[in-house]
């Protein structure tokens, strides 16, 4: 009869073992042939061959999810429906005569992003041009309207008794 798993000693012992094993570990174990892993998933391996796969799985336990999924899909797990675009792209991969692979890739997002950037760029440029034209027109109109007013203000200041030129001249002649 096995003892309960949740004792505190067991995980601690495993941690010690794992730490020591990590220090003395050599090279990473190469991935086994996919056919060997598939045979393991189906329980078709001898004990010795299964141990080889399990040694690899112990090093990289995330791979166990691959085995589990393979088993699930084989046992009738529902496969997703493939979109027509996926079928069309894969269909042209082989030319049907020599097994030659033909390049046929989905348009990359970078091409699309260039088009978007160009559209925004042209919009910004047209706004800038419009702004410049408006500014130039406004400046001309202001100058033509304010030119006379500036002259009048100067004359008024010249003849203004408290501070104007003639007022100062009068003061000088008085003294």
């Amino acid at each position, binding site marked *: 009869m*096995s003892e309960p798993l949740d004792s505190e000693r067991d995980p601690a012992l495993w941690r010690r073992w794992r730490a*020591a*094993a990590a220090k003395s570990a050599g090279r990473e174990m190469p991935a086994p042939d996919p056919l060997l*892993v598939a045979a393991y998933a189906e329980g078709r391996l001898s004990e010795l061959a299964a141990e080889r796969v399990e040694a690899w799985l112990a090093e990289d*336990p995330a791979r166990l999810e691959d085995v*589990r999924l393979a088993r699930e*899909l084989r046992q009738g797990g529902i496969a997703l429906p*493939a979109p027509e675009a996926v*079928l069309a792209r894969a269909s042209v991969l082989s030319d049907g005569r020599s097994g030659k692979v033909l390049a046929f890739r989905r348009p990359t997002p970078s091409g699309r992003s260039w088009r978007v950037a160009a559209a925004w760029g042209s919009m910004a440029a047209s706004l800038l041009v419009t702004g410049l034209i408006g500014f130039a027109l406004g400046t001309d109109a202001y100058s033509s309207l304010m030119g006379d007013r500036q002259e009048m203000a100067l004359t008024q200041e010249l003849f203004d008794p408290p501070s104007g030129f003639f007022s100062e001249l009068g003061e000088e002649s008085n003294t």
Partner: protein
Amino acid sequence: MADGSELKALISGQKGAWDAFVRRYAGLLLSAVRGLVREGAEAEDLVQEVFVRLCKDDFRLLKTYDANRAGLSTWLTIVARSTARDAQRRHRPPSTAIDDVPEMLLAVTDVHHEPLKLPKDLLSPRQQLVLTLLYEKDMDVADVAKSLGVDPQTVRSTHHKAMLKLRAHFAAEGG
């Protein structure tokens, strides 16, 4: 499942056989890469990559498949998952999210130094795998049993035997 004659026709370069193969297995491949990449364009690109791998170099990879050793859908799932993991490695910086690191590996208080003399075969690959899943992946016995395709009692017994070995080893080491 594609039978031997269909695969032969496919490998000999018959376009119709390739199209039938694509139509039959594209959904399975899409399901296989699910969870490893984002659904949508990224998953579809990966499915395309799997098909490219299968048929490139005159169907070199597909020719390694042996129906006597594993089912085609199981093998294709493993190939697809492996392709997806390779793609992940290519596209991601070599870092690990802190949530993915087992808590025990983040501990900094344990300064116990183990001698680098570990008996290589102290734990069998299955025992190592069971302890890894229980103590690093925090899986329960039922989950481990399901993943390994064995009954829970086998997992408990494997754990028990492994712990006996570890206790004996560390007792002999003076720990």
